[in-house]
């Protein structure tokens, strides 16, 4: 019975793994954060964001970017594993 159980359960685990992977990639999406940094700069240059708002947002995004790069690096090297 172990074999039947395993065959039935395994595809669901794979789907859960895939969802976790997608969620991680979205949460630590380097390109999306880089785009937000550029948009922040553009809105500042257009005068739609004050210098204070611009600098605060930039600091937050730069911190997020550093974390995202680190996570993606760990992720692609296999040092982070998705556990379901």
């Amino acid at each position, binding site marked *: 019975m172990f074999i039947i159980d395993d065959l039935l359960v395994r595809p669901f685990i794979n789907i859960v793994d895939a969802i976790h992977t997608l969620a991680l990639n979205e949460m630590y999406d380097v390109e999306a954060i*880089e785009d937000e940094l*550029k*948009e922040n700069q*553009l809105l500042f*240059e*257009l005068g739609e964001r004050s210098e204070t708002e611009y600098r605060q947002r930039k600091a937050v995004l730069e911190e997020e970017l550093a974390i995202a790069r680190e996570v993606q690096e760990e992720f692609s090297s296999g040092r982070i594993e998705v556990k379901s």
Partner: protein
Amino acid sequence: MSHRYVYGVVDADDALEFETEAVAGAEKVYPITHRHFAALVSDIETTDPERTDEDAKRHDEVLREIMLSNGSRTVVPMRFGMVFENDRALKNVLRGADRAFRRSLREIDGTVELGLKIVAEESDEVDREAVCDAVADELEPLAVDAVDNGLFSDRLVLNRSYLVDRDERDAFDEAIGRIEDDYEELIIRYTGPFAPYSFVNVRVGAQ
């Protein structure tokens, strides 16, 4: 110990030295020459400079000064943050990338880079394709080359860089003026001249 922060590479005959507000508080830009080429550098204490807004701006300004001093000068620009430990390491790169520098200098000779971003007001619906086609009709015939820089914001309608002969600069400015008249409802952000970052393909490893 001070290192060498590189702004760009010019033909050795075009080498120059000048005082300015350079990256990381340096006050002088000067050449390190090896055979046909000269790297224009300033001194810096670190090999890993932080990319602050102020220093990124200074990097661009120094390149613009190099480009525009004494009429015009062609420079292969380096991206922000390229530092070499010493003159010898830098000369090794000038020697190793001789062909690449020669080709790049030839390709961008007598040109400048100009940037155009077209931005929609928030919540405005814009026919992107129609705008891009109209802009291409105006500008592409005047440009030597053009590249797309990506729509990193939902409000961006167009984001391109153009490589333009210095002789076509006035005609290009006039074309931009016509685009501004045709699209008063859009924000037209026209920038430059810059050293042609987007049109050179020299990658050198800093040491």
